[in-house]
């Protein structure tokens, strides 16, 4: 059989981890953008938009990400729609992230006291101005912990993209573990790398929270 040195294992895992990082960034940036648009649409109070977005959120929160990936790649192929694994993974992760993020942020906006809306309205601010200058800056502060918590989930969620052919960190770990028959060692390294990816995110969130809290008691 083939021999892997410890360095071989680590090197291959780190190379695969690139894709984990890229997928996570795309999911978060794309999901954040879509989620923000959905949030503002929902805040306008339009009943149709509210119901539609609510259903969208329920759909993506209520089904497993694995299934969403599967259906977006294999499922739509049954109807003749061709997608590349990249396209399918990015779209699935963006939709998934947007559903969770818009719901998280909706809760954060709801946590801003109604009096802020009333005071800014009484000062003749329009809806867009209320959002941009009064409500969203306050909601942002509240949003940092749950948003970062979710970002860490996204990083781990990219592991599921292996079902549509991505060789990211977890899949690479599986392949190497299966050939070296050293699952503890290999998966231990995988866990360490995930930790190394996620921990700085948590640290950054902490510093962000402290920065935004300047001026608050």
């Amino acid at each position, binding site marked *: 059989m083939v021999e892997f040195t410890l360095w071989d294992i680590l090197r291959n895992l780190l190379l695969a981890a690139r894709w984990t990082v890229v997928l996570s960034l795309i999911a978060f940036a794309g999901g954040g953008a879509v989620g923000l648009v959905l949030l503002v649409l929902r805040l306008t109070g339009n009943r149709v938009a509210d119901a539609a977005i609510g259903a969208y959120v329920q759909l993506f929160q209520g089904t497993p990400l694995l299934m969403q990936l599967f259906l977006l790649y294999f499922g739509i192929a049954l109807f003749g729609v061709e997608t590349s694994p990249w396209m399918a993974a990015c779209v699935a992760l963006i939709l998934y992230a947007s559903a969770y993020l818009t719901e998280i942020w909706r809760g954060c906006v709801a946590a801003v*006291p109604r*009096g*802020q809306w*009333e*005071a*800014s*309205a*009484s*000062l*003749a*601010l*329009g*809806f867009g*101005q209320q959002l941009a*200058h*009064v409500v969203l*800056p*306050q909601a942002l*502060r509240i949003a940092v912990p749950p948003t970062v918590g979710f970002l860490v989930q996204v990083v781990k969620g990219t592991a599921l993209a292996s079902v549509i052919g991505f060789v990211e960190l977890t899949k690479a770990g599986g392949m190497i573990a299966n050939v070296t028959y050293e699952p503890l060692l290999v998966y231990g390294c995988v866990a360490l790398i995930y930790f190394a990816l996620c921990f700085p995110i948590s640290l950054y969130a902490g510093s962000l929270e402290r920065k935004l809290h300047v*001026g*608050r*008691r």
Partner: protein
Amino acid sequence: MSAGADPSATNPVLVPPHTEVGAPIVRITALRKSFGDNEVLKGIDLDVMRGEVVAVIGKSGSGKSTLLRCINGLEAFQEGSLTVDGKPLLHESAQAMRELRQRVGMIFQSFNLFPHLSVGRNVMLAPRLVKKRRPDENEARARQLLDRVGLAEKFDAMPDQLSGGQQQRVAIARALAMDPAVLLCDEITSALDPELVGEVLRVVESLAEDGMTLLMVTHEMGFARKVADRVIFMHQGRVHESGPPDSIFGAPRTPELKQFLSSLHE
């Protein structure tokens, strides 16, 4: 800021409204409002003259705050009409509402300052966004107004560094920055510690002296008696009694008002 015979011209801080002195600046006709099945305002007719100070008193649930919130559109009403400084209140038009709200300022019981902005920025925000005031002009006006309420040195402070009374005075300055024709005060001292009430009431009194039209829902009977031109007693969604302070407080006619006034002394 024009020169003229009216009192507000002598004080450069307040901008004169469009309505003439002595003419009605707020006209409310047959106003009805319900929350679902519960009718809270059962037909209100009210004219407030320019420069008048009107105190609105009554039990909780009588509709006092709701009436005030109808005047600047925070609550929608089902029947009747409402005009402020010549502008009718049209709920469907966001544009009309914004124009109306530039003429009516509101001070809230819970201050509602913007916690993420400094005191100065709180006052300057709306004039910058809505009136597109130039930055230097905006800042000068903001400092002037803060000085007017006695807080000139707090320009760069954050709201959570101020006491309740100071925050409420900033709220007044913030509302004044939009040059309103009418100020609505919704129980503005009810959330304050007793020793802080005075500083706020002093500011309001000086505004009244300068000719600002004030509509105040209040429990401070002593203040109402001293400063108000007219007192309105509301009961179960209607204007039950109305008149100068001396007759309302000194010679109540209806049993409901009598009962209300005696309950205050317990």
